Structures are given as structure tokens and as C-alpha cells.
């Protein structure tokens, strides 16, 4: 399928859902790094959260003659069309983060969010002394990560004395939203002492709001292990987060694509562990993002 203008050089298309989420930004960075090392060209397209745009962009990749596609679906769940389109052009597809149910990629790379969120929940139970009033700042409702993290965390705090007193959803996982929502939740429920922000951005906003409201012993945890999230764990603003191994995932995505291009075997699912990160182990991850 190498009808590309630049015959000979291998070109990979990276279809990004957006470029705001630090998680995606990190993946892109590591994909680009790894590609450079492998002497492979990467084309990046940003769908700005619009699945329809993403279909167009994948079409354009195919026209452009990419040899492989790394597809991080935009939209709440994953659209099948980009995978189908790529497959009918005989281009291998690596899906990252979310996998279209009816048309899975040749391999799927993601964090095992449920397990990681459960571990985080268990850690919270231990560190809060088995009790407390929990507020949850949800991500965008209806999305896979939101649902997986909810499921895992619930399991983690099951059986403890931790009561969920409030939950409110953000629209776009943003720090500003986390700040705004938390300021308000703290008014409505002054007894809150644990906050789980479903992403580091949300958690950071929440921590900032708690700090502004003058509550000192708020236990705030996040998810993702963004650079800023890790810094916050180090400074104590966040108590813990789950670090997704973006470096690894980015590298793996490139390696898997190359293997698929060479028609080598790759497992259908390559789930990575989310690493529980606290003040104790944060330094090593700041130095070297996993």
C-alpha cells in the first residue's frame, strides 16, 4: 500500500483526538521520538474531539499513502470507520486508549484502567484511615476512561467507611473546570475531605480550590501521571496519582506498527499497568517517565 509520494521511507499516520489532554500530548511526543529513532516519518492529525473530522483525517492519511496508522479515537467511544477504511486500504492499524468494539485494531494498546483505579481506591482507603467523605470530579460522562475509572475505584473503596457525598462531572477534563466545580462542592458539602479527580487536570484544579478555601488536610488524588500531576504529587498538592506509561505506550505503538507493516505477529491486546504513584516513588517517574 505504499503509494506515497516519498517511496522508500516508511510513513506512519498518528490520528489524535485532541491536543489539550496532557496524556495525548505525551503519547504524541513519545511516538515522534521513537519514530525519529527508527527513521520513520510521522504525520500528526488533530481531530479536535470531532469524530467526523477524524474520519476525514484518516482518509487523508490513506490518500497520502501512509504505511501504518496509529489511531487514538476521538469522541465518547471509538468509531469504527477509520479502522475499516484503513483495513480496506490494507494499512495496519494500532489503536491506543480506546478500541472500536466492532472493528478492533490489529493491536490495542492501553492502560488497564480498572485495575489501576482499584489499586488507587485501596490506597485511599488505607491512607484516609478507612473513613472519610469523598467527592468525585468526573471526567466527560459516557466516555470509556470515565467509566473504567469509576468502576475500578468503586471496587477499591468497597467495604470501607468512605462515603461518597458528592459527584459532579466536567465537560472536558480541564483544570479550570476542576477548580470551579470543587469551589462549589466545598460550599455545598463542607465536610468533604477526600477528592478524586478523574484526571490529573481535574485533581489539580480541585487541589488548588481546596488550598484556596483553606482546607489543609484534604486528600486529593488524580489519574494519568501527567508531568504537572507528578510535580504536584512531589509537592504534596496531590496525595497520589496513577501514572500511565505513556513513554512505553508511545514506543510500543511505533514498534507494533512497524512489526505489523513487516507482517509480523502482534498480540491483539497489549494492556499496560497503571503505576500507583505517591510521594515515595514519584521522583523516579519525574526523572524518567515510564
Amino acid at each position: 500500500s505504499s503509494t506515497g509520494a516519498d517511496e522508500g521511507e516508511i510513513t506512519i499516520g498518528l490520528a489524535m483526538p485532541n491536543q489539550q489532554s496532557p496524556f495525548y500530548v505525551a503519547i504524541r511526543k513519545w511516538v515522534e521520538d521513537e519514530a525519529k529513532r527508527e527513521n520513520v516519518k510521522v504525520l500528526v492529525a488533530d481531530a479536535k474531539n470531532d469524530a467526523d473530522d477524524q474520519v476525514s483525517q484518516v482518509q487523508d492519511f490513506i490518500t497520502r499513502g501512509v504505511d501504518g496508522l496509529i489511531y487514538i479515537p476521538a469522541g465518547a467511544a471509538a468509531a469504527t470507520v477509520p479502522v475499516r477504511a484503513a483495513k480496506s486500504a490494507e494499512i495496519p492499524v494500532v489503536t491506543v486508549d480506546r478500541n472500536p468494539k466492532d472493528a478492533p485494531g490489529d493491536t490495542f494498546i492501553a492502560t488497564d484502567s480498572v485495575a489501576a483505579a482499584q489499586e488507587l481506591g485501596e490506597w485511599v482507603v488505607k491512607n484516609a484511615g478507612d473513613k472519610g467523605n469523598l467527592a468525585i470530579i468526573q471526567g466527560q460522562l459516557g466516555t470509556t476512561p470515565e467509566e473504567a475509572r469509576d468502576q475500578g475505584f468503586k471496587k477499591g473503596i468497597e467495604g470501607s467507611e468512605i462515603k461518597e457525598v458528592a459527584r459532579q462531572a466536567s465537560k472536558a477534563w480541564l483544570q479550570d473546570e476542576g477548580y470551579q466545580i470543587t469551589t462549589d462542592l466545598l460550599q455545598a458539602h463542607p465536610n468533604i475531605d477526600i477528592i478524586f479527580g478523574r484526571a490529573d487536570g481535574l485533581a489539580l484544579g480541585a487541589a488548588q480550590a481546596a488550598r484556596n478555601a483553606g482546607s489543609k488536610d484534604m486528600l486529593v488524588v488524580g489519574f494519568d501521571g501527567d508531568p504537572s500531576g507528578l510535580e504536584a504529587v512531589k509537592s504534596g498538592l496531590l496525595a497520589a496519582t496513577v501514572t500511565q506509561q505513556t513513554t512505553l505506550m508511545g514506543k510500543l505503538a511505533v514498534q507494533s506498527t512497524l512489526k505489523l507493516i513487516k507482517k509480523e505477529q502482534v498480540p491483539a491486546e497489549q494492556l499496560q499497568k497503571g503505576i500507583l504513584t505517591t510521594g515515595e516513588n514519584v521522583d523516579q517517574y519525574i526523572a524518567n517517565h515510564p
Partner: protein
Amino acid sequence: MTQNPASAGPRADEGRRSRRGAVKGVAWILDGVGGPFLGLVVLVVIMAIFAPNFAKPINLINILDQVTVLGILALGATAVIITGGIDLSVGSVFALSVMVLGWLSHDGGMPLWIAMIACVAVGGLAGLVNGLAVTVTKLPPFIATLAMMSVARGLANMTTDGRQITGYPEWFYSLASTRYGGFLSITLMALIVLYVIGWAVLKYRSSGRAVYAVGGSPEVARLAGIKVQAVTTWVYVVAGLAAGLAAIVLASRLDSSQPSAGEGLELDVIAAVVIGGASLAGGVGRITGTLVGVLIVGVMHNGLNLLGVSPFLQQVIIGVVIAAAVFTDVLRRRKERSA
């Protein structure tokens, strides 16, 4: 009197007609969209030179395919903008329609064709509410449709509590994907038919002319006996119906329905219409111009992707191209006036 008015009577425009001469047929269709059209030609030439594979037929068809949704929405928006209104709700209503389609056919268990009718009807209904808010409660269109933008998005999310719906029957998916004669998908055909209808109505029907009159001055239109409120309400309904139709195209193209569809799309739609020479002050605008505007947007996105331009730089370039495209139109009008 020394002057005989009859002899010096009103003149038809000779000068203009002779200027057309050579390329009469094309000029007749493109009448008055010269500026944007020139912009499109320049853009296409640049892309054909620099972007790999741009000029291949398959890519050109892809572009048409990619602009179907934008094109249908812009068609409705053109009528709204000619009346001097604006429709910010179009992206949200589009999302609401697509969710109704998915929800009725999946969770509701209805036959897909009924869901499709409901999908278009919901769009029309939202448009009707917009129209009545503008004409009866006298809200400024910006506000009426901004409110609808928020409401429709909320409702779209509420249908499935934010989740998306995937998997339509194969025949439905093929509406957008099967290309008859290697070229025309059903959705693309629909786009073309809609544009021809829209063009004919605006140019050759009294109701179309009334749209221009209302946009030029609602008071003049009223005094001339035009049903201003009815015309105004109708253009919003048409925009809503267009959103419903575009929703079907989207669902078919994506094989899924998601409540976040069309976020921020309202500005793209308006940009395409204005690039095509319409004026937000009302009274001015052409379907052919809108088509050119839509194609400029489509070619630009496609070309930049083929060139592998980084998404951030793309944003910068797109902004500059929008400004430049409209600027050519400003220049053309200025020249025309001083000519």
C-alpha cells in the same frame, strides 16, 4: 421641459453583460462569487503543486465526501444569514438529531427509517423553536440560537447519558461509503440535489427573493406585503431540517452516533458561508458562493493534512486563509464600486 425622460429612460446594464461574454455559462452560475471562486482556484493550484496525491481523482472525491456534513449545514445557514440572522445552534441540533436517530433505532427498537424521519423532524422542530423565538418572542437571533445551542447539546447528552451508540445496519453504512460509478455515494448525491434545489429556490422562487428582501430590511419587506415573520421562521426551520439531514450523513459515515458531534461546528459553518460572500448584515449571499466557501474549507483541511503540516500550524494557516479569502471578496467589491 428641455429633457425628454422617456428617451433617456432606464438602462439595462450593458457593460456588465459584455464583460461576461466569453465564459457566459460558468459566469451565469457563479454570478457574483468571483472573488471566493478565484480564491478556491488559487488554493487548489497551490495544493496540486505541493501536496502529494492531492490532484488524484480519488482524493478529490474524498474532499467532496468530507465536506458533505459541512455543506448541508452551510446550505441551511445561508438562508438564515441572508435574512440577517445567525444560527449558532446548528452543531448542537445536529448532535441532538444524530442521538435521536441512534436512540430510537437502538434503545427504542424502532425501524431505522422511522428513526431517520424522526431525526430530521427533531432538527426541524428545534429550528421551529429558534424561528419562533426570533419572530414571536423577538429574541435577537444570536441569543435565541445560543440558548438553543446549550439546550440541544444538553438534550443530546441526556438521551444516552453521554454515551455513544455504535453499529448501524450495513445498508445504512453504505449510504455514505458505497460509491456508485466509483464516484457518487448516496450522501454526496443528496448534497448535490440539495444544492441545486437551494440555488433554484433562492434565485427563481418568490419565496427565495423574499428571503433577500427580509434580510435587506425587514421593514421594507413588511411594507411590500411580504410575510416577514413567516419567512424568518421558515429559514430557521430549514436550517434545522438541514441539521437533521446532516445528522443522517454523519451517522452513516461514522456508523455511530455521539452526543459530542458538531462541537464548535457552528463557527465553521458560518465561516464557510461568509467566505462564500454572504454578509452577516443580511441581504447578501448566494448558494454558489456557499458551495465555494465550503470547498475552500474542505480543500484547505485536506491539503494541509496531505502536506503533513502540524495541527498547531494548521490552525494558524486556516485562520490566515479565512481572513485572506474574505479579503479578496472585500477587494473585489471595493473595485466594483469604484469602477
